């Protein structure tokens, strides 16, 4: 192996991993049952055995620059078979949480989002920002000269008065761009860390071009091939499938609705609310239903896992809870719209906006960031041929790989 290098264990890191779900980390005595049992671990660089030893010693830099942490889908095959009850799956989950916090661009925000103590603060930010936007609405409208003269009647509660569209679109587009930048920043830092680690380990022979590996990853994501290969968590793949496609469709519909005014294709139909039989609204209702079913299945599975002793950390519940709240308040405000119960609808819609803010703006800091980091890790794995070690490996296999998997 490369020459001896000075190990810099980070004791505080161990505590954080132990604290957030990896309590049983210390019992692992490296029998590697987990790596053998795991369907997803590649033959040449098996995991999660090495991650366990790194976590025990607290080798933070290695763990955070290791794509295998993100190749695991936490299906708990390893935890169920581990003879010492060390539950490597939870340890990997905790390490993933640490890497999300580590790579987040403004790190304090990640720390806030991922700790229950800061929950009121985390919820207050969107509520305050939205409240501020509503409060500044009148002067802003006068300033921008688009104030609508409403003839002086006292408006108790009508939809467009409380949440005009131009305000919502401007507000959310601005903050989404911020989140997008933070997301890209995190991904780039993660990619560089991965390359640096591989360069140090000396195996820099890219198997595929980045473009090809991105295509392969997308195919893998859309068909959930990796996900379904885990045996114990068969139904987890199903619920993730629902949530994935439901969310994707809703994102597309939202994007279409937001950009409708500048969209050449929808010249005429920029009038809200869409007719019930408008294909866009039908797709949205269908996707909402699919997302709701997915969330319910996930919550049911998480409760089942809790019974089996696997740990559900705040990191998991916060994301799943926010997603579930978004779907509930979404359908709630639609039903209240049809029932024309005016004051109630505005309230549920306001809660809906706060949850959507929580989902999208905190994307790079919460568990939702798995969208970014897992995709990056998969592209990197394809890129460096980490998973390509099929048994009938082509002769171009490096000898060093053979030794490791025997």
């Amino acid at each position, binding site marked *: 192996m490369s020459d001896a290098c000075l190990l810099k264990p980070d004791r*505080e890191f161990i*505590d*954080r991993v*132990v*604290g*957030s*779900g990896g*309590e*049983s980390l*210390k*019992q692992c005595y490296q029998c590697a049952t987990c790596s053998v049992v795991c369907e997803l671990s590649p033959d040449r660089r098996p995991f999660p055995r090495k991650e366990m030893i790194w976590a025990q010693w607290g080798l933070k830099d290695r763990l955070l620059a290791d794509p295998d942490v993100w190749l695991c889908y936490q299906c708990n095959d390893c935890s169920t078979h581990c003879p010492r*009850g060390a539950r490597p799956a939870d340890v990997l989950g905790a390490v993933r949480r640490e890497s999300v916090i580590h790579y987040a661009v403004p790190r304090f925000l990640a*720390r806030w989002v*991922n*700790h*229950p*103590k800061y*929950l*009121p603060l985390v*919820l207050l930010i969107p*509520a305050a920002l939205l409240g501020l936007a509503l409060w500044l609405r009148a002067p802003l409208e006068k300033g921008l000269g688009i104030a609508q003269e409403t003839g002086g009647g006292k408006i*108790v*509660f009508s939809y467009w008065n409380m949440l005009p569209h131009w305000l919502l679109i401007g507000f959310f587009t601005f903050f989404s761009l911020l989140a997008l930048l933070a997301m890209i920043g995190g991904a780039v830092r993660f990619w560089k860390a991965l390359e640096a680690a591989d360069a140090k380990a000396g195996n820099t022979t890219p198997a595929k071009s980045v473009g090809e590996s991105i295509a392969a990853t997308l195919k893998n994501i859309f068909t959930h091939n990796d996900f379904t290969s885990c045996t114990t968590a068969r139904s987890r793949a199903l619920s993730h499938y629902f949530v994935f496609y439901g969310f994707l469709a809703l994102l597309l519909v939202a994007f279409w609705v937001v950009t409708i005014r500048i969209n050449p294709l929808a010249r005429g139909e920029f009038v809200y609310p869409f007719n019930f039989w408008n294909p866009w609204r039908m797709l949205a209702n269908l996707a909402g239903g699919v997302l709701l079913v997915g969330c319910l299945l996930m919550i049911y599975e998480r409760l089942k896992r809790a019974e089996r002793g696997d*740990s*559900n*950390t*705040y990191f998991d*519940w916060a994301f799943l809870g926010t997603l579930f709240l978004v779907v509930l308040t979404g359908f709630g405000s639609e039903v209240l719209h049809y029932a024309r119960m*005016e*004051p*109630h609808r*505005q*309230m*549920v819609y*306001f*809660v809906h906006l*706060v949850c959507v803010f929580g989902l999208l703006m905190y994307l790079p800091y919460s568990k939702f960031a798995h969208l970014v980091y897992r995709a990056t890790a998969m592209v990197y794995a394809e890129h460096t041929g980490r998973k390509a070690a099929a048994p009938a490996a082509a002769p171009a296999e490096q000898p060093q790989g053979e030794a490791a998997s025997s």
Partner: protein
Amino acid sequence: MSQSPREVNDRENVRDAMDRRDFLKTGGILSAGGACAYGLPLIGALASGAADKEERPGRRKWGMVIDLRKCRHDCTACVEACRQENNVAFFGDDDVENHERWDIHLIRKVTIRRKYPIESAEKSVPVLCNHCEDPPCALACPVAATYQREDGIVICDQHRCIGCRYCLIACPYNARYFYFKEDEDWPNQDRPRSSHGVTHSCTFCVHRLDRGGTPACVEKCQEIGAGALTVGDLNDPESEISKLIAENDVKAIREDLGTKPKVFYIGL
């Protein structure tokens, strides 16, 4: 079997797996936040006059006196007039079987005969909503759609009625009717007709009374010369109805029920 985490240090971001205390705390914060986000503006909206207030349109108390001596036996002029004025659903005499189930009779002519001790001559009595002073239907309505106005008229606000039909059960006079079926034709287009699913009963043609007119049945009865029906303000001693009640011995239907009806009959 799981070894408890070493109490190395309790820096706040070390121990954050969800245990029961955290769960209750987050649950508490979430529900409190949700309640405020939901409750405060709602209370503001309701307080700012969204709820309707019943002012007093001048203290009147409408009542009716029916003089059975003048009421002609088989004449149904008042029923026709009422049907024309208020678009009352009438499903015709052709299908007798259904006709009796869905017809609405805001005012109906009931012929009665004394049974005990000997049978007396038949008498035709117009029966309508008595606009009781203490109405059991208004007491029963869960959403206060059927209610008593300041001027004593008991009316069903069909915009608010949910169609539970509890007022039909509570009325001891069979004076409240439910639109099981909608009537297609629309005789009086200035007046709304009722959709299926709501209750309807005689309102003393309140749209005319509010504008100083007289109910359609009273007007029609004067027109054909009988003049058996008179409507007036019971609080005003000089009004014609007060004089009639003072001079004749009037009787209402089933006054013993304690609902204090306001439709009085001379010669019942």
